[in-house]
């Protein structure tokens, strides 16, 4: 069993895995983005408001118990006030016996308001409890599942999609160009193998590489430091993943068909994929961008790959969410590979 398909795939896989630079840019480089962004944004979601305190008592203890603020003790009022004045503390609670005074900075209205509400609420609650009367109005808080995600939850599908996109584009474009330049394409043309066999084996290698990338990515993102939690429908991301590879593989073929040198091809691939990754929300959510940018974003394949991967990897959406990303990616693949096949030439001239 040594079919042309099998040995071509093997030859290409060896060529790929023996090239250290490519390995770095395929596996390590996107992971570096994940680690850097993951650590950078890991605090932002869980960042608790600080509150200074001078003196102690039931109010300070109750504030600590709420868990909503991080209470920091100061020995003297002046030391605490200095922090408030510098803008490092939104508020300072001064407790002398039963008297509770909140000093706050007016510069940060939002935080000052939060702190003020909190301290007031806690104090009133203690007052009610001290009176021995049952409270007239009952109050309870329940959390609602919202659509905004913890940083790692959108970073992982985003950066993973970008990493796969870039390696699929490069994986299709660079071999095509270098084979044309080094005449390997001519040797293939002289051998009784079909274009389907050649492209198919290249695609197989690209998919294998992408699977390794995905496993590595999810494994690293699931480390406790980052804390990725996969949703129950993560496996629905597989069709999006495969169609995404196809879409970017066909873009790579188009690049490889146009470009005559490796330098030109990697330049073109970067120019296509890098801006696309920003516009598609690979690194930052795109929801806050102006409307026209979002419109642009919606015609990009990476946007739909991103959305699809996020929907299933972390949002836990169902089958019905497959339709849009899969249709867009498939359409993209068909159109782009058709153009690539028209532009393609075997020879440099």
């Amino acid at each position, binding site marked *: 069993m*040594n*079919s*042309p398909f*099998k*040995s*071509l795939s*093997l*030859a*290409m896989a*060896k*060529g790929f895995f*023996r*090239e250290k630079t490519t390995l770095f840019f395929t596996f390590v480089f996107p992971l570096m983005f994940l680690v850097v962004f993951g650590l950078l944004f890991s605090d932002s979601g869980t960042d608790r408001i600080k509150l200074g305190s001078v003196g102690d008592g039931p109010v300070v203890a109750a504030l600590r118990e709420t868990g909503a603020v991080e209470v920091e003790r100061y020995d003297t009022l002046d030391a605490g006030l200095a922090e408030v004045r510098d803008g490092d503390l939104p508020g300072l609670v001064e407790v002398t016996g039963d008297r509770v005074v909140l000093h706050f900075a007016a510069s940060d209205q939002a935080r000052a308001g939060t702190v003020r509400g909190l301290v007031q609420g806690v104090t009133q609650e203690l007052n009610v409890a001290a009176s021995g009367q049952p409270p007239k109005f009952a109050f309870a808080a329940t959390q609602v599942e919202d659509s905004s995600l913890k940083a790692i939850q959108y970073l992982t599908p985003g950066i993973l999609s970008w990493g796969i996109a870039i390696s699929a584009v490069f994986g299709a474009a660079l071999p095509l160009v*270098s084979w044309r330049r*080094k*005449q*390997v394409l*001519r*040797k*293939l*043309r*002289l*051998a*009784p*193998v079909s274009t389907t066999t050649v492209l198919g084996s290249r695609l197989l290698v690209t998919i294998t590489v992408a699977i390794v990338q995905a496993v590595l990515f999810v494994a690293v993102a699931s480390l406790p430091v980052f804390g990725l939690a996969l949703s129950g429908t993560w496996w629905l991301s597989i069709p999006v993943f495969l169609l995404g590879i196809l879409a970017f593989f066909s873009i790579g073929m188009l690049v490889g068909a146009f470009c005559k040198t490796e330098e030109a091809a990697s330049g073109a691939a970067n120019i296509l994929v890098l801006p696309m990754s920003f516009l598609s929300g690979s690194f930052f959510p795109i929801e806050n961008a102006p409307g026209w940018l979002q419109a642009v974003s919606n015609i990009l394949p990476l946007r739909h790959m991103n959305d699809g991967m996020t929907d299933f990897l972390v949002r836990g959406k169902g089958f019905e969410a497959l339709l849009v990303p899969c249709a867009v990616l498939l359409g993209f693949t068909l159109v782009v590979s058709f153009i690539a096949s028209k532009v393609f030439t075997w*020879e440099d*001239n």
Partner: protein
Amino acid sequence: MAAIVVEDIRKSYGDLTAVDGVSFTVAEGEFFGILGPNGAGKTTTLEIVEGLRRPDGGSVRLLGENPFPRNVKLLPRVGVQLQASAFFEKLSAREQLETFAALYGVGPARAREVLDLVGLADKAETREDRLSGGQRQRLSIACALVHDPDVVFLDEPTAALDPQARRNLWDVLRAIQARGKTIVYTTHYLDEAEVLCDRVAIMDSGRVLALDTPAALVRGLDAPVRVVLERGALAAATAAGLPGADEVTEDDQSLTISTRTPAPLLSALAERGTLDGLQVRTATLEDVFLHQTGREYRA
């Protein structure tokens, strides 16, 4: 039966006419050489016959078929070594051959065999980019032979080979020919073409200037025999008086006598006892080549 029939093929790159009306026929089992200075159009001619390029005009039949566009029926029967060697990246010599073998549905055992054939068994596990120039060249030849094709095209296969490898390759090629295969090759080594080829075509500026067996071409040149003596063995004036001597020239090293009747001249020299260091030079294919293509140097 003819393995290759080429009729009046033409090919231009922009204003440059690389092949300008070339015709020849190669019989099955023939060893055919294409000779010519750099830029004569040899590679372009081969590429058209192999089906890699479409001729602007004229026709090609390769094993009775049209090779262009890509003719899948022909491919398994044709082996091509390109002038610039083409390999997969990062693969060892053995892996390269096994991959090419598999493309033709040939197993790895044959890959080993061909590696042995070109004397690269020791380098089987060496990566292609770490082979020497001549070793790469031999690997490239091996890749063209791996599927045992009926027609083999070799574009300067012996360029960059050392004398041992060159002679070894001659044996390999002769053995292939002995099995009834057809070989078409180009070379700049005219001595080699003279011993290997059944017939040669001498090309220049995209045209065939002469086409025949090497012996017939040399005979057709009708060149005098040159007898070369060490300088000082004989005075130039004496030499000119010898029977059969047509012309005498002298340089720092030697004295050369041209003759059309070497027998009386040589016996006269033998009588005088001046045979030490004597060389007799008859015309070679190289003389035919220079006569046909001129001596001036060009790009």
